[in-house]
């Protein structure tokens, strides 16, 4: 590893950062999450904490830009130079800049995170079938308002699960209109515009007015890229137009004709020969998470490493594995020392009831999921019932992401979303994170937090319950009315609970107990069903009452799981533990989840 001349480093440990603007390539919440995870890499091996500010001066200012973007070190268009950052210090020192002529993703192609709809923000599934036809990108088919949408499973006709795709008709980024969608047509400098434009700007960003008259109201926002948007070329961000004419031939997909580098491109009008408007079609793109983790290494004082596998190696290479190499860890700990275990926190005073506020306080680093206020029942034929609750650029004011927060400290969590035993270890899940509880010689020790999205990328942030099938080692995850089944890295889902034979009235599964013979008891409120894991069907849709088999346990538990052969029913902060006998199951212990099960101090 290498540090900068003079071993430039921050003299304080609680580092602050601010995201100055967003790339149109990614939904803002995905950008925020990628930056938070990149910082979490460094805080997991040092005493450093990272706090996100939404205004004012921050140690690390993050911005996207193109070509000459204000610091005298111009970017160079698509590919080549991806980003740069400055060593620790005042002013521009410590800042990180990302070239927005690149196509920013999470390294595996466009991230089309949906909003509204009924799929809890699940990503699009391409291709998908709708009315018997296959779609490879978002579509406005089936709608009268032109809003692009997609199915979040392979077959919309069967699963009816969908969400709306990033588009300027749904929201805008940054600007001064709180993320309101564009209004078309709008007037600007006396001219009428029916689409986003770069007019009036020199940085190539596409924008629109959020009222009919910009000259009068001066309200605007930047347009998010659609999934068919091109990168680079002379039409950055414009969607492909299919079919288009090129050299008097018609093309209905991207092509590499006319080029020697093999890059796929398309026209952004219906006739390239006439208009010569074009751009590159989307490829796997560059992982904003990995590039940000590298740049933040610079912002903390690390120069380039000559170890090819190290994160601080100058050249980009995509990996899904843990990005930090021992060389990176040695380098950053040379500057800041290793992570000091969080001081044992005394149990907090009267625990807050989990509510939306508690949720966001309890786990501040992950930006709030932007949820429609209206019921999630709007279907492609109806417009979303309400706009997004928070502007995409809005962000809570001070967001400690340090290791001392409940978000990182398993003992600071009041109520877990889900608890289960996987490969003999207790796993506790909370708001996009999870911990593994390892039974050591000196009692249980929590490992983590880890990000759910890093291990099981198809899952939503909030889970209701999960279980591992002891025979096949398949992992079943439940959230709302959906279920995901992981076999190793491959996943089936999300699928609706009805696929398991459950009644549509069942809103969520809150617990699961594995039984002999490939059966699992699924719990919801004070009822349960017997699931045949092999058939993935319950033996009857009629539920059994809990008290018939488990007398003395609480009504309406928020979690039920099997651990080390005992059954646990959780309500609020407590658990009721039962030993399973053939005749009657008996409660043999009642205790606190955090103190008696996780052995928090």
């Amino acid at each position: 590893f290498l540090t900068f001349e003079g071993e430039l480093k921050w003299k304080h440990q609680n580092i602050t950062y601010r995201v100055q603007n967003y790339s149109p390539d990614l939904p803002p919440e995905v950008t925020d999450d990628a930056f938070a995870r990149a910082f979490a890499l460094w805080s997991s091996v040092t005493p450093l904490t990272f706090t996100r500010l939404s205004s004012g001066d921050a140690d690390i200012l993050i911005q996207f830009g193109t070509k000459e973007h204000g610091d005298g070190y111009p970017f160079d268009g698509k590919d080549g130079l991806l980003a740069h950052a400055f060593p620790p210090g005042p002013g521009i020192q410590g800042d990180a800049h990302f070239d927005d002529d690149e196509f920013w993703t999470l390294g595996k192609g466009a991230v089309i995170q949906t909003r509204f709809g009924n799929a809890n923000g699940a990503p699009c599934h391409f291709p998908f079938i709708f009315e018997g036809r296959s779609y490879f990108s978002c579509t406005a088919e089936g709608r009268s308002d032109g809003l692009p949408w997609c199915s979040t499973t392979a077959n919309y006709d069967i699963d009816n699960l969908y969400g709306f795709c990033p588009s300027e008709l749904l929201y805008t980024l940054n600007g001064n209109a709180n993320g309101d969608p564009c209004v078309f047509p709008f007037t600007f400098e006396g001219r009428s515009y029916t689409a986003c434009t770069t007019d009036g700007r020199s940085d190539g960003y596409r924008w629109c007015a959020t009222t009919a008259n910009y000259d009068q109201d001066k309200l605007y926002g930047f347009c998010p890229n659609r999934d068919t948007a091109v990168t680079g070329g002379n039409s950055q961000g414009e969607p492909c137009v299919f079919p288009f004419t090129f050299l008097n031939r018609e093309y209905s997909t991207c092509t590499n004709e006319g080029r020697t580098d093999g890059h796929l491109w398309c026209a952004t009008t219906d006739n390239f020969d006439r208009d010569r408007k074009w751009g590159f079609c989307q490829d796997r793109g560059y992982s904003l998470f990995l590039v940000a983790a590298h740049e933040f290494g610079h912002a903390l004082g690390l120069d380039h490493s000559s170890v090819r596998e190290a994160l601080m190696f100058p050249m980009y290479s995509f990996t899904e594995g843990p990005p930090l190499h021992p060389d990176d860890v040695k380098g950053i700990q040379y500057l800041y020392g290793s992570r000091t275990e969080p001081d044992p926190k005394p149990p907090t005073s009267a625990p807050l009831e989990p509510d939306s506020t508690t949720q966001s306080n309890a786990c501040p680093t992950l930006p709030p999921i932007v949820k429609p206020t209206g019921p999630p029942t709007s279907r492609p034929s109806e417009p979303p019932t309400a706009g997004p609750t928070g502007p995409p650029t809005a962000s809570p004011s001070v967001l400690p992401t340090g290791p001392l927060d409940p978000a990182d400290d398993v003992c600071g969590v009041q109520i877990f979303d889900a608890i289960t035993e996987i490969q003999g270890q207790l796993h506790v899940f909370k708001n996009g994170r999870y911990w593994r509880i390892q039974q050591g010689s000196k009692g249980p020790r929590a490992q983590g937090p880890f990000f759910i999205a890093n291990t099981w990328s198809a899952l939503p942030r909030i889970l209701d319950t999960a279980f591992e099938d002891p025979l096949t080692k398949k992992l079943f995850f439940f959230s709302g009315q959906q279920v995901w089944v992981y076999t190793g890295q491959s996943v089936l889902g999300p699928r609706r609970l009805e696929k398991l034979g459950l009644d549509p009235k069942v809103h969520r599964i809150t617990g699961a107990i594995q039984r002999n013979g490939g059966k699992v008891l699924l719990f919801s409120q004070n009822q349960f069903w017997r699931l045949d894991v092999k058939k993935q069907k319950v033996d009857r849709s009629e539920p059994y009452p809990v008290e018939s088999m488990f007398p003395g346990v609480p009504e309406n538990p928020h979690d039920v799981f099997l651990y080390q052969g005992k059954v646990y029913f959780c309500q609020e902060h407590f658990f009721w533990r039962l030993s399973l006998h053939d005749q009657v199951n008996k409660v043999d212990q009642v205790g606190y989840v955090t103190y008696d099960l996780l052995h928090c101090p």
Partner: protein
Amino acid sequence: APRGRSSNGPVLIRFPGEKMNNLTNQQFAEEYLNRYGYIPAGLLHRDGSSMKHALRKLQRQLALPVTGELDSATIAAMRAPRCGVPDVGQ
């Protein structure tokens, strides 16, 4: 039947707005070595040895075979996507 390609192979066109890399490999390499701190601009044209020395330094940093030559592996590495912070010096 689809129209055959024009006799002299695929038609290559100039795409408007695209950064054309008219630089030779040698010119591209000199620009790269200067941009990432391997050789100060002034030293570039003085003599071949400084180029050879700078190439060796780059090849060691990027874990390439150290030849001091502008070989294909080195050119490919120079064209690969990377961070803009110089590898050497400020």
